[in-house]
């Protein structure tokens, strides 16, 4: 059952990811954003299969709930029309596909090589254990990240002022 669910979610993730990047029907960024939501939700399914329940919830809340909504807001604000068909450069496509194939080969070989001596037990990422870890070993990074969020907020306010001085 779990294996079937894995294949369903993996297929859904990859298919929707492909439609974000290269949708053959529409080049509208709104369509890409919608498929990004689907990709993120099916990836949350994969997280649940990996017993990372807390991260699955955070993934849906933060990514599907906040990040993609932000994307849609900006698309609405900019009034971006569908990308008009410009002449696609053959050179760009060839180099793109070549570099992607190269990176893919490296990743696949490293996955093949690096699978030895896995422990018998497997971690379960529920909220209690993650929270304990976060507030004992990782208190300092946690606080620093909150400062980072504050800095990002101030930066955004400065950037979006009408007059950039």
């Amino acid at each position: 059952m779990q294996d079937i669910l894995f294949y369903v979610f993996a297929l859904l993730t990859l298919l929707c990811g492909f439609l974000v990047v290269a949708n053959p029907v529409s080049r509208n960024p709104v369509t890409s954003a919608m498929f990004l939501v689907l990709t993120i939700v099916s990836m949350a399914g994969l997280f649940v299969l990996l017993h990372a329940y807390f991260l699955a919830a955070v993934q849906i809340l933060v990514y599907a709930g906040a990040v993609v909504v932000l994307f849609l807001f900006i698309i609405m604000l900019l009034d971006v029309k569908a990308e008009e068909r410009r002449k696609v450069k053959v050179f760009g496509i060839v180099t793109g596909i070549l570099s992607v194939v190269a990176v893919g080969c490296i990743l696949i070989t490293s996955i093949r090589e690096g699978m030895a001596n896995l422990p018998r037990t497997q971690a379960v990422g529920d909220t209690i254990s993650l929270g304990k870890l976060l507030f004992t070993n990782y208190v300092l990074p946690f606080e620093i990240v909150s400062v980072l969020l504050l800095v990002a907020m101030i930066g955004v306010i400065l950037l979006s002022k009408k007059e950039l001085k």
Partner: protein
Amino acid sequence: MTPVGPQHFLAVAAMLFCLGLLGVIMRRNVLVIYMSLELMLNAANLALVAASRYNDNLNGQVMVFFIITVAAAEVAVGLAIIVALYRKRQTAHVEDLTSLKL
């Protein structure tokens, strides 16, 4: 069919990363390039969660938590930059934004 193990999850993560890379290289709309960047970040997250699960070590998942936080901050700042750019140049097309080119 072999039972699903860490290799399968890592393979999905690798393929998703390649898709994101392809989008960053081939698409011309700044917003879509940004979404492809998000895809690549998500692929890295998936690989980290899989490695954390099968190594019986929760530190990887804490790392993913921080990555998600930083990605949210990054999206906010990046989109603000895109809006500022659009105000100045009226375009969201990377081929029109070449003033840094020699």
